[in-house]
C-alpha cells in the first residue's frame, strides 16, 4: 500500500485540503461572523444580520479612522508610484555597479524589520514636529511603499525593449514625447500594479502608524488594534472584512490589468 500511486495521490489531496483550510478558514470565519446577529463573537452565528456594518458606518470613530486611512493612502500611493517609477527608469539606464548600490538603498525599507523603521522615524519626526500629523504618516507610508513600486516597475523595465524608445528618438520625438507615447504605455501595467500594491500596503499598515498616530489623527488599523486589545465585538469583524475585501479587490484589479497586458497573473 505504501508504494501505490493511489496512496500518494490521496495523501497529496489531503495535504492540499489541509493547506486550503489552514490558509483560508480564519478569513472565512471572520467574514461569516461579521454578518452575525449575536451580540458577541461566536461561531457559527445564530442568525444573520447587517447590524455590525450599520454600527461601523454610524459610529464616528470608525468612519473617521477609515477616512483618515484613505487620506493617508491616496497621496502616499500616488507619491510612491511617481517617485518609484522615476527611480526605476533612471536605474534601468545607469551603470550596473552604481545602479546596484542605489537600488539596495532604495529597497532598504523593505528589508529592514519594520519595527526599526517605525522607531527611527518616530524618534526623528517627533523632533521635526511631524508626529501626530497627517503629513508625517503620509511621508512614512511613501517610504514603506516605494520599494514595492520600484521592484514591480524594474521587473517590467528589465524585459522592456529599449530600441523602441531609440526608434522614437530617431524619428525626431523629443525625450518627453518618446517617454509619454512609447515607454509609458508599455510599462503602464506594472506601474498600475505597483500602485495597487502601494495602496494595499498603506491601507493595511499598522506598526509605523501605531508609533506616529495620535487619537486625533488615527488610521483604522490603529483603531482596530486598540479595540482588539480591549474588548472585542463583531464590529471589528466587519472592519476586518472591509480591509480584506479591499485587498481582494486590489488583487482582482491587478489580475485584470495583467491579463490585459498579456502577462501571467499571480506572481
Amino acid at each position, binding site marked *: 500500500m505504501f508504494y501505490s500511486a493511489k496512496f500518494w495521490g490521496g495523501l497529496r489531496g489531503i495535504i492540499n485540503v489541509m493547506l486550503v483550510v489552514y490558509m483560508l478558514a480564519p478569513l472565512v470565519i471572520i467574514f461569516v*461572523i461579521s454578518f452575525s446577529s449575536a451580540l458577541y*463573537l461566536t461561531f457559527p452565528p445564530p442568525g444573520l444580520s447587517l447590524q455590525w456594518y450599520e454600527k461601523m458606518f454610524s459610529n464616528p470613530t470608525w468612519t473617521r479612522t477609515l477616512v483618515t486611512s484613505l487620506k493617508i493612502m491616496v497621496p502616499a500611493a500616488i507619491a510612491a508610484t511617481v517617485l518609484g517609477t522615476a527611480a526605476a527608469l533612471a536605474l534601468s539606464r545607469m551603470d550596473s555597479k552604481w545602479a546596484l548600490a542605489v537600488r539596495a538603498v*532604495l529597497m532598504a525599507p523593505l528589508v529592514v524589520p519594520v519595527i526599526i523603521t517605525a522607531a527611527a522615524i518616530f524618534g526623528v519626526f517627533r523632533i521635526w514636529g511631524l508626529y501626530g500629523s497627517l503629513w508625517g504618516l503620509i511621508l512614512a507610508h511613501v517610504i514603506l511603499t516605494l520599494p514595492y513600486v520600484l521592484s514591480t516597475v524594474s521587473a517590467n523595465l528589465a524585459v522592456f525593449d529599449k530600441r523602441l524608445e531609440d526608434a522614437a528618438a530617431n524619428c525626431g520625438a523629443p525625450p518627453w514625447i518618446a517617454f509619454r507615447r512609447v515607454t509609458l504605455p508599455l510599462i503602464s501595467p506594472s506601474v498600475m500594479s505597483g500602485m495597487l500594491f502601494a495602496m494595499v500596503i498603506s491601507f493595511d499598515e499598522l506598526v509605523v502608524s501605531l508609533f506616529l498616530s495620535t487619537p486625533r489623527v488615527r488610521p483604522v488599523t490603529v483603531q482596530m488594534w486598540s479595540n482588539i486589545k480591549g474588548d472585542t465585538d463583531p464590529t471589528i469583524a466587519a472592519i476586518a472584512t472591509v480591509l480584506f475585501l479591499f485587498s481582494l479587490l486590489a488583487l482582482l484589479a491587478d489580475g485584470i490589468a495583467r491579463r490585459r497586458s498579456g502577462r501571467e497573473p499571480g506572481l
Partner: protein
Amino acid sequence: MTAGNRTLWLLIPAVLLIGVCFLYPVSWLLQRSVSEPVWGLQNYIAIFSKSIYLGVLWNTVAIAGATTILCALIGFPVAYSMVHARPWIRKLLIFVVLIPFWTSILVRSFAWLVILQRGGIINDILVGIGMIAEPLDIVYNRFGVLLGMVQVLLPFMVFPLYSVMARIDGSFFRAATNLGATPVRAFFRVYLPLCLPGLGTGAMLVFIIALGYFITPALLGGRGDIMIAQLIFERIDEFGDWPLASALAIVLLIGTGLLFAIIKGVSKLRRGRI
C-alpha cells in the same frame, strides 16, 4: 553625454526622501544607542548581560527557529504537492498560499484570536464532542504565536522550494530506485539533497523575517513571552527609554543584516561552483 546621465535627475526625489526620512532616522537611532546616558557601549552591555533582556533575545531566536522548522515541515509537502498537481489545482494552491501577501497581518491575527480563544470555535467543538471538559488555553502562548506566524510566513518557504522542485528531473529518483535503493533511501540520498538550495533560502528568509515580527506575537502571545520587537515598542511606548530601545533595534538590524549577508555569500558561492 550618455542616456544614463540625462535621466539621472529622476533618481533625486526618491534618493532624497529615503536618505532624509529613512537612512538619517536609522543613523539617529544608532547614535542614541551609543551616546546616552554617556558615550559608550553600556546599553549593549546591558542587553547582553541582564537576564530579562537575554530572555527576550532567546525567546526571539527560539520562536523564529520554531517557526522556520514548522514552515519547512509544512512547506515541503505543500511545494511537492503543488509541483505535481494538475494545472488548475496548482493555480488554486498558489493563490491560497499568496493570500498572506495581500491581506493584513492584523486581520489574520485577529481571526486566529477569535478561533482560538476560550469561548472560540476550537474550544466549542472540542467541548461539544466531549473530548475535553474544560476549554483549553491555546492562545496567548507559544502555540498561538506559532500557529499565526507559520501561516503568514509559509509563502516565503513554499516559493523557493517550489521553484527548485519544479526543475528536479524525476528520472534521478527512478534511477536510484531502479538501482535498488528503497524509496526512503532514494528520497534522503537523491531528492532531498537536490531540494536543499530552495530549503536553505526559504529557511533563511522565514527566520530573518520572523526575528522582527511584532503584530502576531503581540496579539497571540503570552504576556511574559515577548519577542525583541515587542520589547522595543514597550520600551519606547511605556518608558520612553530611547537609549535601550535604540540599542535593541540596532542589535536586531545587525542580526538580520548578517544573516542576509550569509544568504548572499552562499548563493554567490553556489553560482561560482556551477
